[in-house]
């Protein structure tokens, strides 16, 4: 039920399974084919390697190679049974506690914690010491000794899965407990359990061999790898090769089981990226071959005498096994000193990547290039590490302040770090600057905040603290990436007012990124609308607020966003038809063509260039066609 159609099997899984299959095959046929050979006593005792005896003979003249092969069945069977026992007891304990109720959950959890803290091999030794040594007692001992691990994992996983909304929803639909467990909880915890089980199989192979080696496991005349190893070690000084057979067998079994576990984890986790994606991340970003003609930029509408940021033909693409997937496809952008530029678009439009490329903070796995990338006089277009000064010239505010502060460090430590590293100020000065910075963004009681941890601040306070941190080095440009998306409306209004004040009081230029066109329209002087990795319209905010926009996509964004004039009967919201194009699926056509109400034949043939239109710029064939101007009246 959990196997998924149409997914490629990971290579590790194939390798591990092949190895295990060979071992299982040997275990199945070896006792039948070579059982007598392995038991045959000869006078050739303690022989070394020869063509007749590949791994020599033991003290009774028996062939070690065949004995190793024959021992596979018992060794692997015992390991399998012990693992199955551990998983079964563990899951019943772990998941059962979750299903049993609140009090049982708390007490049971503690008991499991206690059991996990004992080394399993000690428990196994104690159990085997109590019972007379036999293959049954060793399987039981290992099964019991390893079950706390599975109980712990099963308990944690079941608890987290049963808190999910889908389990709650299903429970209130009236689905029975058993079905809830079998259809919703167990399948969702199966993958990690199976991974642990395959590792457990490998460890119990070794542990059982260990017990047999100590004489606490399999007794003569039966033998497993452990007892063979024990015999081999006794003869180690006389006949060193004797011990290698069982050692290699144990190693191969462990390796095969481990690989299968790793492979299963990859195969069953539908959202886990393949190895290739992870590997792609290791490559350094490097410039890409230039694309075709970059959009001409007029430079007449920056409106400010000095530019803080100048970007020409910025391209970002994902490096993958199928070659580069273009994500940002030639963005040109200017930010004047003291200007607030808004970047708006749906998720996947490339707006955040554009901003991160500006700060040279693209995550690994992405390659970028630009004809020109200048921030406050620094040329960043060259590959290699950006100048250290960049960290102080650009401040960044992210959407989620929780993940941007290190939860283990005090606010003060994190705020002063940037000052001490980049501005080389001493600890005391840095602290007083941090306090002043927090006061500036209206954080109440700033002195006491320095000794607090991030979780002790509310969401709005954390966002303010992050803005304070971004401003400490007095950057020329503040990049705010969805700074208010996670906040309440009242707090959002507060943060927007704060950014507005920073802009007017200190002349800090701001690049504001948001999916909410109303947020962008509130704060910005100029707005760039992005779609499919390109700027499709650039418009002065006065025109945006008045609804004087040209591109059909911008119009559609305005029509979809609820504002005070929206009404469900008289003026319903109009969502955009269709979906945004996937990166890599855009060819030479206009990326908006498939959703555009004004689409023409030309739109499907070539992408429009961003050209000046009125006081802004727009990339649309329908707008750029000179409308037949005539005296209509």
């Amino acid at each position: 039920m959990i196997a998924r159609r149409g997914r490629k099997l990971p290579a590790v899984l194939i390798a591990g399974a092949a190895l295990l299959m060979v071992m299982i095959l040997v275990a199945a046929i070896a006792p039948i084919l070579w059982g007598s050979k392995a038991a045959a006593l000869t006078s050739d005792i303690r022989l070394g390697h020869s063509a007749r005896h590949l791994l020599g003979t033991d003290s009774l003249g028996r062939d070690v190679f065949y004995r190793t092969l024959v021992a596979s069945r018992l060794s692997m069977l015992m390991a399998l049974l012990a693992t199955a026992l551990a998983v079964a007891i563990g899951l019943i304990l772990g998941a059962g506690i979750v299903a049993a109720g609140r009090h049982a959950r708390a007490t049971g959890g503690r008991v499991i914690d206690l059991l996990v803290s004992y080394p399993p091999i000690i428990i196994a030794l104690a159990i085997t010491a109590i019972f007379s040594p036999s293959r049954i007692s060793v399987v039981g001992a290992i099964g019991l000794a390893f079950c706390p691990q599975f109980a712990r994992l099963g308990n944690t996983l079941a608890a987290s899965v049963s808190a999910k909304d889908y389990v709650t929803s299903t429970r209130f639909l009236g689905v029975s407990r058993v079905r809830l467990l079998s259809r919703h909880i167990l399948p969702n915890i199966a993958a990690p359990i199976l991974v642990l089980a395959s590792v457990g199989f490998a460890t119990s192979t070794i542990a059982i061999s260990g017990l047999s080696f100590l004489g606490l496991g399999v007794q003569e005349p039966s033998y497993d790898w452990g007892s063979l190893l024990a015999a081999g070690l006794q003869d180690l000084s006389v006949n060193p090769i004797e011990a290698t057979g069982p050692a290699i067998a144990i190693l191969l079994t462990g390796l095969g089981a481990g690989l299968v576990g790793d492979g299963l984890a990859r195969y069953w986790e539908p959202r886990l990226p393949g190895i290739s994606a992870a590997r792609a991340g290791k490559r350094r970003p490097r410039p890409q071959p230039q694309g075709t003609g970059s959009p001409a930029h007029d430079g007449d509408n920056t409106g400010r005498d000095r530019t803080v940021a100048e970007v020409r033909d910025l391209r970002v693409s994902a490096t993958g096994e199928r070659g580069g997937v273009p994500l940002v496809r030639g963005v040109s952008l200017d930010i004047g000193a003291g200007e607030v530029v808004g970047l708006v678009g749906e998720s996947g439009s490339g707006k955040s990547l554009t901003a991160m490329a500006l700060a040279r903070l693209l995550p690994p796995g992405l390659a970028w290039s630009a004809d020109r990338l200048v921030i406050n006089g620094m040329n960043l277009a060259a590959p290699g590490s950006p100048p250290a000064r960049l960290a102080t010239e650009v401040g960044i505010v992210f959407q989620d302040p929780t993940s941007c502060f290190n939860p283990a460090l005090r606010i003060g430590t994190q705020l002063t770090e940037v000052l001490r590293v980049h501005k080389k100020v001493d600890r005391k000065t840095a602290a007083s600057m941090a306090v002043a910075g927090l006061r500036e963004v209206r954080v109440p009681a700033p002195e006491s905040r320095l000794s607090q941890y991030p979780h002790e601040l509310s969401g709005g306070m954390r966002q303010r603290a992050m803005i304070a941190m971004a401003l400490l080095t007095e950057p020329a440009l503040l990049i705010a990436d969805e700074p208010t998306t996670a906040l309440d409306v009242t707090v959002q209004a507060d943060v927007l007012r704060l950014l507005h004040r920073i802009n007017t009081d200190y002349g800090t230029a701001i690049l504001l990124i948001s999916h909410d066109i109303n947020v962008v329209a509130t704060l910005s002087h100029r707005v760039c609308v992005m779609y499919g990795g390109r700027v499709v319209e650039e418009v002065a905010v006065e025109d945006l607020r008045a609804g004087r926009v040209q591109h059909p996509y911008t119009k559609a964004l305005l029509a979809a966003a609820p504002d005070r004039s929206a009404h469900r009967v008289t003026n319903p919201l109009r969502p955009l038809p269709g979906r945004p194009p996937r990166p890599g699926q855009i060819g030479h056509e206009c990326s908006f063509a498939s959703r555009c109400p004004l689409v023409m034949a030309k739109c499907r043939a070539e992408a429009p260039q961003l050209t000046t239109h009125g006081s802004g710029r727009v990339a649309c064939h329908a707008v750029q066609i000179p409308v037949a101007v005539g005296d209509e009246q």
Partner: protein
Amino acid sequence: MSEPSSQELLRVADVTAGYGAGSRSARVLRGISLAVSPGRTLGIVGESGSGKSTLARVMAGQLRPSHGAVFLGGRDLGSLRRQDLRRARRQTQLIPQDHYSSLNPRMTVGETLAEAINPRRSPRRGDRARVNELLETVALDADAGRRLPHEFSGGQRQRIAIARALAVQPQLIIADEITSALDSSMQAEILNLLLRLQRERDLGYVIVTHDLSVAQYMCDEIAVLYLGRIAEHGSTRLLARPAHPYTELLRDSIPDSSGRMLTELPHTVAAEPGDAGNPPSGCPFHPRCPHGPQVVTDRTICGTSLPPLQLAGEASVIYAACHFPLSRATA
């Protein structure tokens, strides 16, 4: 307070609820009374910590109030036996906010819907037609039934969650911030879908949201929650002319094209609400109120006495819990 009538789908009467027990219990809701009728939409708005999601859970029968009662179709949920309670709960469907955790990642959409159609048995061949019908209702291809949740966008997942809620043919749907994680185009799609379903099926809705423009677009009636109490309640028109200063603050916080929010909004004294488990004395809003004792010094009553929810306007039926409701003429 009026008696629950049989025309109402749901009524909560003087409900107090919270989490935990004994000395560590936290009361999140206090004295809430609200009702929903078929074909009508009640909006519950407020900031995080206002108790709106807790109220949604109480309404859905997932959380038992510590005081007060929940009536479903005129019947007190607290008096029902287990079997009847299960049946009653199915009439109200709660759609949670988080579209990542609301669907079982390992069950195909078809399996999820088939289970909702009949939770007591395994899916059968005959369920297919009904699953396809549900998918069609929420404007998804029949092909979607064979796919897994992670193959869908956020908006599509919310459609699936709506389809699952519809599978039990409920009379009331409670939507807890279901569009807050979506971008505006997807949000518009979901909101319009809900409106169409309401027209077709005469469903009652409870829309829980922090976004006043969503509430204004969707709702007939709005209850503004502040620290677990109703601050203002009445027709959606209250958003245009708030009687309670808190509603006014919320309304003026909506970013809009005018840009006046940046400069003209009065600064409140404290930016964030307190703790619902331990609210300020008197009117819970008084430490933040731009018309309250922090600004107008002779309004000391706000800090000492809890204002009752009372009729605030002459013409329309709007209730506000405020000692000094805003004059309707100034708006």
